[in-house]
């Protein structure tokens, strides 16, 4: 129990170290860069994309809500694949129970797909 | 007969259900109500006579089991219950008949009779309860009926306000009763009266706790019976129809508080402090309400303050160990006060106003009503040979023999004031020049259907006193003493002068009223011809009464205004403060409820943090 507790506390130490690194790294890098580089600004250098197209109007434009619909559906089936891969790899070890579970999972997703289909999410009007 | 006693509350309930479901037309509704309440009364009378033979009975069944305790429901017939049943059903029956005439022009007569049925059911259920919980349930029910009936003329703003006030003020008392009941349950482990009394007798309940319980229960009784300072609802309750005032706010429901104290008498008796509280509250209420009654101009309001005052009398009796006196006065008061209200209703029916300044000389037009009102007035004033004389006498004796001389003096003064204000009412309404509101063209005597119940009550207001007198035997007292528990029944001895003093004061009060309100308007011939002796006596006291007028009466007037304002500003001020506090919490809460979802999250988080910080501070984690 005591060991477990030490492990538990040690893992927070890791988090803390990473946090520290995450904060220090950009600060050190940027400060070092600022100290070392020469500073000669010209108007061309200060544009957003120095060698690209000139930016035009606001980046806040309305997207069609259907993009999100597609995005959501994509994520759902993406997640399905993420689940299916490890299961397929370890199929021999997991046995019949996992097969049943996977079938239920897929049937649920298929119902979801039918729902999306019938609600005309898949057609672009 | 006793075994079918459970039918007594069932008949009125049946009336309520029938009227509600089938909504018969007016006359038929009245018929159903009258017949069923009549059945109930005859059964109650039968049970009363059967009780003489069979003695006390108790029937019970288990209602509810929580943990290991059984809670029962049932019915008990003992002298007190049987007497109350007869009073309740009789007055209810008579009021049913009376309402047939009084409410004849009201469209909602069916509803009215339905509510009357529900009330009679609840009240009968209350008085047969063998345990405190059942009593409490019916106690709440009668309160709800009273609420419905006070607000019966819902289109009047005053009636609505009065209904609300009545309900809420009596609830304050009910909370006391509820807490007392629960405390008692934890001490005794039962709601049964028998179990409670035997536990009290064995001393199972510790002294201060016992006093606390007794006072809490008494607070419940104070709310229902309009004892100071919880009396404020009762005069307002006069906004209800007059038959309701007679039934609920004079004869039965308001007497429930007195009944409660009587029914739990052994509990109170075990705590001298509680007894003193009851006696003092009763005495103060009696004189306080009587003084206010002196300056009111609404006929029903005068009677309402008189009811408060008389209920205070009963409490004074019970608090002075005068069990029989209290119950006796409860009975006689039920009859004569119901009579007075019904007669007042008859007057209102004729002249369509309640302001006594707009009435006068009605005796000629309403001689039956007038006679009956006179009988009622004589009875309440305690004039010898009328019922009120005997019962009031018992109370004064009880207070005197208990050694409560100050309260005794208050009682005596109240007796005088009572006679005065009741007869002030009588003289202003029935004597003097004929007056009537401009809108009323013709004054007619009420129909027979209204007069009959009044005649019955008039007879009872005279004879009901004779069941317990020093001359013909103390039948009522002996019988009440056969109750399930021992009650002290001693007829106070050695104070032979009390009845004389009481009668003298009553007559003095009447005389004073006569001199002040009738003398200048009525020729001396009339009174001197009919009652020459009395006239002569009063005439000689004329100058003394002038002095009375200057000192005593004016003094009392000031006193009564004082109480009136005390009532208005202090008592209602405390109530307003409590209400205001709740309002303020509500307002503050509603302000935080801004509709902004981030506020909601912030409140939840702040709550969480607050709990944590308090825990850390009190839990000893940070120092």
């Amino acid at each position, binding site marked *: 129990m005591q060991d477990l507790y030490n492990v538990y506390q040690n893992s927070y130490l890791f988090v803390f170290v990473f946090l520290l690194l995450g904060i220090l790294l950009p600060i050190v890098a940027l400060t070092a860069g600022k100290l070392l580089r020469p500073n000669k600004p010209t108007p061309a250098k200060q544009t957003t994309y120095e060698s690209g197209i000139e930016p035009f109007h606001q980046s806040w434009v309305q997207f069609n809500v259907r993009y999100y619909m597609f995005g959501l559906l994509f994520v759902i089936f993406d997640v399905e694949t993420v689940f299916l891969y490890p299961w397929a790899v370890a199929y021999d070890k997991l046995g019949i129970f996992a097969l049943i579970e996977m079938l239920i999972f897929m049937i649920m997703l298929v119902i979801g797909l039918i729902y999306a289909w019938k609600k005309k999410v898949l057609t672009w009007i | 007969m006793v075994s079918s006693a459970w039918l007594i509350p069932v008949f009125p309930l049946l009336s309520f259900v029938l009227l509600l479901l089938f909504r018969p037309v007016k006359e038929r509704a009245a018929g159903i109500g009258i017949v069923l309440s009549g059945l109930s009364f005859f059964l109650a009378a039968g049970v009363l006579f059967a009780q003489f033979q069979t003695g006390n009975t108790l029937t019970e069944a288990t209602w509810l089991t*929580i943990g290991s305790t059984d809670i029962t429901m049932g019915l008990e017939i003992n002298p007190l219950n049987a007497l109350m049943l007869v009073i309740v059903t009789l007055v209810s029956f008579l009021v049913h008949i009376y309402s047939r005439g009084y409410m004849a022009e009201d469209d909602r007569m069916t509803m009215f009779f339905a509510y009357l049925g529900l009330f009679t059911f609840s009240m009968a259920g209350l008085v047969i309860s063998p345990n405190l919980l059942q009593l409490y349930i019916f106690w709440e029910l009668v309160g709800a009926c009273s609420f419905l009936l006070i607000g019966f003329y819902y289109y009047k703003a005053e009636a609505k306000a009065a209904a609300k006030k009545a309900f809420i003020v009596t609830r304050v008392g009910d909370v006391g009763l509820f807490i007392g009941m629960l405390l008692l349950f934890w001490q005794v482990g039962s709601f049964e009266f028998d179990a409670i009394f035997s536990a009290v007798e064995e001393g199972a309940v510790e002294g201060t706790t016992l006093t606390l319980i007794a006072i809490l229960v008494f607070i419940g009784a104070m709310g229902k019976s309009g004892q100071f300072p919880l009396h404020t609802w009762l005069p307002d309750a006069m906004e209800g129809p007059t038959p309701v005032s007679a039934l609920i706010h004079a004869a039965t429901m308001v007497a429930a508080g007195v009944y409660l104290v009587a029914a739990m008498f052994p509990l109170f008796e075990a705590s001298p402090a509680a007894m003193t509280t009851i006696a003092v509250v009763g005495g103060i209420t009696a004189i306080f309400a009587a003084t206010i009654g002196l300056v009111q101009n609404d006929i029903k309001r005068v009677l309402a303050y008189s009811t408060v005052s008389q209920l205070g009398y009963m409490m004074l009796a019970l608090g002075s160990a005068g069990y029989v006196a209290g119950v006796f006065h409860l009975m006689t008061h039920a009859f004569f006060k119901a009579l007075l209200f019904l007669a007042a209703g008859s007057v209102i029916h004729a002249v369509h106003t309640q302001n006594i300044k707009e009435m006068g000389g009605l005796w000629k037009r309403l001689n039956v009503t007038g006679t009956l009102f006179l009988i009622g007035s004589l009875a309440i004033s305690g004039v010898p040979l009328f019922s009120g004389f005997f019962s009031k006498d018992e109370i004064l004796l009880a207070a005197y023999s208990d050694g409560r001389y100050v309260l005794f003096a208050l009682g005596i003064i109240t007796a005088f004031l009572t006679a005065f204000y009741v007869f002030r009412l009588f003289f202003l309404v029935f004597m003097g020049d004929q007056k009537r509101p401009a809108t009323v063209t013709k004054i007619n005597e009420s129909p027979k259907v209204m007069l009959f119940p009044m005649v019955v009550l008039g007879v009872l207001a005279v004879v009901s006193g004779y069941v317990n007198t020093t001359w013909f035997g103390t039948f009522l007292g002996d019988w009440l003493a056969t109750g399930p528990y021992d009650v002290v029944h001693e007829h106070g001895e050695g104070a032979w002068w009390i009845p004389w003093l009481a009668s003298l004061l009553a007559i003095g009060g009447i005389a004073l009223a006569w001199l002040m309100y009738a003398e200048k308007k009525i020729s001396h011939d009339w009174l001197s011809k009919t009652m020459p002796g009395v006239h002569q006596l009063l005439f000689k006291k004329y100058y003394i009464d002038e002095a009375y007028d200057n000192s005593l009466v004016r003094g009392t007037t000031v006193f009564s205004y004082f109480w009136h304002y005390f009532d208005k500003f202090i008592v209602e001020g405390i109530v307003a403060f409590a209400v205001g506090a709740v309002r303020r919490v509500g307002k503050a809460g509603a302000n935080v409820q801004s509709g902004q979802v981030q506020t909601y999250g912030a409140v939840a988080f702040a709550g969480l943090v607050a709990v944590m910080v308090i825990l850390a501070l009190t839990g000893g984690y940070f120092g």
Partner: protein
Amino acid sequence: MDLDTLLSYQWGGMLPEFIIIITATLLSLLDLFLPKDKDRKLLAWIGLAGIVAALLVLFTQMGDPIVTILNDTYRLDSFSKAFKLILLVGTAFVFLLSMDYSRHDIEHRGEFYYLFLTALLGAMMMASSADIITLFVGLELLSISSYILAGLKKKNMNSNEAAFKYVVNGGISTAVILFGMSYIYGFTGETNLFNIQAALQGPLVAENSFLIIFAFFLLFIGLSFKIATAPFHMWAPDVYQGAPTPVTAFLSIVSKTAGFVIILRTILTIFISAPGLAVVHDAGINTEPLLVSIQPYISVLAMLTMIIGNAIAIRQHNIKRMLAYSSVAHAGYLLVPLASLSALVFEATWFYLIAYLFMTLGAFAVVQHVAAEEKSEEIHAFSGLMKRSPLLALSMSVFLLSLAGIPLTAGFVGKYEIFMSALGTAQQHYILAAVMIGTTIISYFYYFNIMVQMFFRPGNPVLHKRRIPAGVSFVLVLCIIGTIGFGILPGIPLDFIQQNFNFNEFFAQP
């Protein structure tokens, strides 16, 4: 896990859940393939049939010994059966109400019906889980379904607002709950409730009892969102007001019951033997049990809830908003048995929830009908109801009297039992009981205000006179029978609990 182990489980124990999930799936498919103009009432009847079937199966399970399936994650004991009964009956009533709910407001009738079923499924899973993970999944299934239900009046701004606020507040509460659960898992490395209970008795835990209490409060306050008690009550009025009336009824009954189920289940299983604060005696330092340490805090939260709910309810003009605050107040009453740690905690909570089900559903049924007639949910809509429709007014009075706790109604018996539980423990909770009484008195004001409107106010002209629909009247009749019947004869349900449910099973280790 091989097939034999799989088949060795008593799957029959999960039959009610299976029925509900199959019905829900069926409804969603039917809704997709039925022609658009076809009346969706058929779906409601199928859904109702599914609930009734699940109820029947549940009745056959009464008295069976404890069933545990799937490595003890699923657990069917008396506790879960008793509360599933409330959940199923409540949802069946909500279905009856929803059939008659305005077709104009809700276009997607199919979703309306089967989302109730998925929410019910989540609630039932919560009732019979013995594992933090399945509990959480059940909780989320219930929550997410309810979020959508609250916003089903798509074209109504209030309904949209309700759904949005519900989601945001729900999200906060979920985060808090998960934070608390993560502490518990971090301490014990277990997700099974009984294993956690055992692990929390170790000496290491005793040294760090503050963290355990911290986890307890995170969990408790997070879960208080579901039952709408302080400090997580603020969403309730807005959501109750905006959501369609049957959904409001569902939230205030089924969702609240599920909230109490999960609170009782987690708190009384996980923390029953956990160490709490250190107490300094003459003899030395002792640690008292955690459940004793946290008593004052839960009591204070319960009192705050009662006071806030009742005091603010007085100021409301919208009947659904008022009922929302009243439901907050009732949740406060329901916390009393838990705060006082009475032996009657299960009986008292169960009975009160049953009584609450009848009186609240009845009240919402009347509200739904009156709102449909008057096209208004303001309290004014009730004025003169006694004239217009006496039976409706009288039934509403019965429900209001019961909510106010007037004798001869189920609400009185329920309150009375809670009262007994507050005063019946060794350490009597006078303040808690006193606040309960005081706030009950405050509640008379707003309940009677409605009665005054119904009885003593001149009526509005009848705008849209409708017959009382069959579903609503059925619910009304059952609720009146329940409210008055259980008030006059409380022995029936109380005997029923004692005969069929042995709540000691709750603590039995698998």
